[in-house]
């Protein structure tokens, strides 16, 4: 009876659908432009900003602003903690699915 229920492994910060999607999209480790994330996840600028703020506060992603010619661009990367959090969340979700089956 020492087995912990998979729901214990779910992290509220990561579990939200859009935030899980952001981390999954960034998982390869490269920096992805703000607009590309917004388009892939079909979010508005405001929505994406809010989700990124939550992830940045939890130190799961980092963003940098690039200024120069043309419009300034914001590049977002996943942190090592973000990779761990994503993998832990997916493991917990898979365990939950297995338990339900």
């Amino acid at each position, binding site marked *: 009876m020492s087995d912990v229920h998979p729901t214990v492994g779910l992290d509220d910060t990561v579990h939200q659908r859009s935030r899980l*999607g952001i981390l999954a999209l*960034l*998982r390869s480790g490269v920096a992805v*432009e703000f607009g*590309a994330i917004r388009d892939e996840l079909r979010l508005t600028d405001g929505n994406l900003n809010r989700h990124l703020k939550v992830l940045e506060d939890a130190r799961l992603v980092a963003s940098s602003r690039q200024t120069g010619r043309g419009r300034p661009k914001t*590049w977002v990367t996943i942190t090592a903690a973000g990779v761990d959090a994503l993998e832990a969340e997916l493991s917990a979700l898979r365990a939950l699915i297995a338990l339900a089956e």
Partner: protein
Amino acid sequence: MARSLVSDAEALRTRGWRMASPVWFPLLWTSMTVLASVPAALLLDGANAAGWYWAVMAPVSAVVSGWFFSTRRAQPPVRVGLVVLATGLAMLLASGAIVWLADGSWDMAPWLVVGAGFAVFAAAWRSASTAVFAAATLGTAVTVSLVDPDDRYLVVALVVGVVGALAALAELVRADPERRA
């Protein structure tokens, strides 16, 4: 709900990997231009035909690759400017090294430049297949300089062209979701 979340996350992870695998383009472009240089030199059949071919294709390749990367919405984790600077320095050092290696002969220098440039790319994009291509290019250029076979250009062009095409194929397969299951 959980199944849907996992499915969405997997799909987005795959999409992210596809965005993160752009090195296939310069690899494919390089291998095709290198392989095409052999028949092009034979067809032109003039003095320094290969030289004229590369005088045209080198700037065209730079412009085409620059355009391709500038349109990508995913960038290497380090600053792009740093990658460009590192690539330039590696190319300069590599082309200078050939003078010491082959006693003043510069005909292998372009291959060292290509190899050094792709070595920086491989590090920036964390691409093993690009690293293999860079190592094969550098290794072949050095070996040919030391062994000095009859058809120096043909040997290097074939090795670089074929390895480049295989590396481009490997880069495209890198985006295959099965690989990261």
